[in-house]
């Protein structure tokens, strides 16, 4: 396989808080091959947003990279100067943030904001606005040309989400990072946007790192999937491997709990029993052991090894050792 666009190696990130050090990410290894779509799933609070804000180096002030390395198109992101970083952001790498309601500046028109992100291009303002309205039409904003003069608060949440997606696509990046870009949308629209992303991705040949709670969205869009739990990447593999041959008990539980795959109607939605462990006082052994139906004695004592089940398919679990 050619060199991946994004190569995250052994990444650990802490948040310094008055209550103690929150070990938000621990020893993450993840690769995004060029022109492929990698999905990231996991419960709320498992560190997905932390991971991508570390990748683009826009972290919270109290965040510290404790260990590891992030390589983007071969460059070590930790070593880049602010100027080199700026040259990458919005050109080779672009991002759709999680909260669409606050992602746009409230006192500038959408057209202005979409023209400004093309500030590097030596084309006329008219041309920039034309590109902007074309992209808005593509993501399904009706009447795009006249809506360029509107301010963000004139758009609904779903429309704002589509505007932020349009902005991220507008710069034709090598890597698009999207943090739950479709969560604010209704189901039909979500499917539309996902199909659109897939089509555009094939057109532009960009890689996508895609975060979502919705497993069906991941299944539809992605080539590879990473499953995160409490700050660790517990399993990764191709979409087929993860959905048809899940190795980790957490992945299985996640798949069983997904409402869209439940075959028989039940009164109660199934859930995973137990709670996420505290990220300040981490339990010994496997991070998932106190919720795991198959936990053995060894799981409480020693961290699990990475077991490779197939090419690209690895699972961090004791129970799979042969």
């Amino acid at each position: 396989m050619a060199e991946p666009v994004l190569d995250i190696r052994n990444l650990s990130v802490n948040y310094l808080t008055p209550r103690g050090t929150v070990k938000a990410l621990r020893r993450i290894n993840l690769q995004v091959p060029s022109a492929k779509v990698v999905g990231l799933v996991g419960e709320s609070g498992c560190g997905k947003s932390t991971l991508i804000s570390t990748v683009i180096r826009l972290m919270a002030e109290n965040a510290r990279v404790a260990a590891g390395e992030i390589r983007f198109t071969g460059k070590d992101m930790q070593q880049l100067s602010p100027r080199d970083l700026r040259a990458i952001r919005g050109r080779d790498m672009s991002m759709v943030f999680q909260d669409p309601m606050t992602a746009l500046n409230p006192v500038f028109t959408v057209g202005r904001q979409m023209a400004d992100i093309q500030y590097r291009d030596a084309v006329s303002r008219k041309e920039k606005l034309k590109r902007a309205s074309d992209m808005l039409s593509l993501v399904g904003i009706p009447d795009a040309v006249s809506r360029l003069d509107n301010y963000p608060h004139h758009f609904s949440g779903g429309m704002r989400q589509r505007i932020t997606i349009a902005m991220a696509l507008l710069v034709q990046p090598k890597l698009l990072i999207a943090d739950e870009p479709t969560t604010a949308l209704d189901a039909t629209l979500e499917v539309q946007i996902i199909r659109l992303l897939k089509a555009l991705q094939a057109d532009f040949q960009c890689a996508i790192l895609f975060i979502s709670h919705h497993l069906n969205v991941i299944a539809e869009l992605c080539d590879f999937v990473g499953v995160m739990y409490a700050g660790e990447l517990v399993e990764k593999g191709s979409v087929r491997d993860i959905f048809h041959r899940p190795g980790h008990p957490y992945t299985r539980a996640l798949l069983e709990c997904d409402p869209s795959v439940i075959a028989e109607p039940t009164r109660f939605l199934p859930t995973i029993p137990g709670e996420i462990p505290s990220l300040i006082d981490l339990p010994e052994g496997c991070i998932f052991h106190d919720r795991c139906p198959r936990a053995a004695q060894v799981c409480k004592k020693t961290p699990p090894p990475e077991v490779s089940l197939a090419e690209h398919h690895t699972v961090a679990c004791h129970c799979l050792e042969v």
Partner: protein
Amino acid sequence: MLFYLLKRVGLAVVIVVVAVVLLYSMIHVVPGDPASVILGPRATPEMKQELHELMGLDRPFVVQVVSFLGKVARGDLGMDFFSQRPVAQIVFKQLDETLVLVLASIGWAMLLGIPLGCYSAVFRNTFSDKLVGFFSIGVIAVPSFVVALYSLLLFAVTLKWLPAIGAGESGQYMDQLRHLILPAFAIGLGWVGYIARLVRASMLEVLNENHIRRARAFGLPEHMIVFQYALKLAILPTITLLGTGIGRLISSAVFAEIVFARPGIGKLIFDSVVSRNYPLVMGAVLVSTVLFVLSTTVSDSVNAMLDPRVRERL
């Protein structure tokens, strides 16, 4: 925007009318007969009666207020009984001087305070931020008449760089400008601190907002993020403050006007209060009230121009 302006100006007119009525009632309802005050202790009852009729004080209160409002609307603020000149003429003669002083003071304070605030916010918690903070608190704490006195002593008396008193020969702009520097410095200095603090605080808040992170994620240059994307939002509270600030300054420039012996509204109000010249007090207070309302109207409109959400709300 036009709709916003119409509504906002309508509101301003209502405020002025209410203020005029309150002002008129305040002076005329309080115990003490204005006529006796004007005429002094040796006035005869006939003289008082005559003045009462002249001032319309014998008519019912409501009629008095309405006729007063009517006159005000026509620009007639009454007669000054001491100098026998129309109040409006006296007040407006002083107004130019005060307006120039206030606008010059706020102007330089904005030119310095806004960049200082931005700088502090961008380099927060560094040594230079703390230095700016220290300077700001310092100049806010010192009363402007103290600054006025000391700058007068230093630059006018000791160094003799700038003239000490007066507003300069009318028509000679360089001379007027030289006379303006020290008073404008004295009044504006505290405002530099105010503006810097306020801009810093709101800038820090805005820089933490999600859309700024998004702008950074697109690699926008830092100066564009700070001076366009963030400042347009961070400046809004400052403009509101300046709206009320300029209005208040117009009547409270009195310190600097007295210290530098400049003519002006502040000094006029001060002198006429000292001499119990009610028509003149009323005229001057009325004009400064109108200016106050005017300056808040202007600042609200500027905010509405900057922020589409404001102009669609009112």
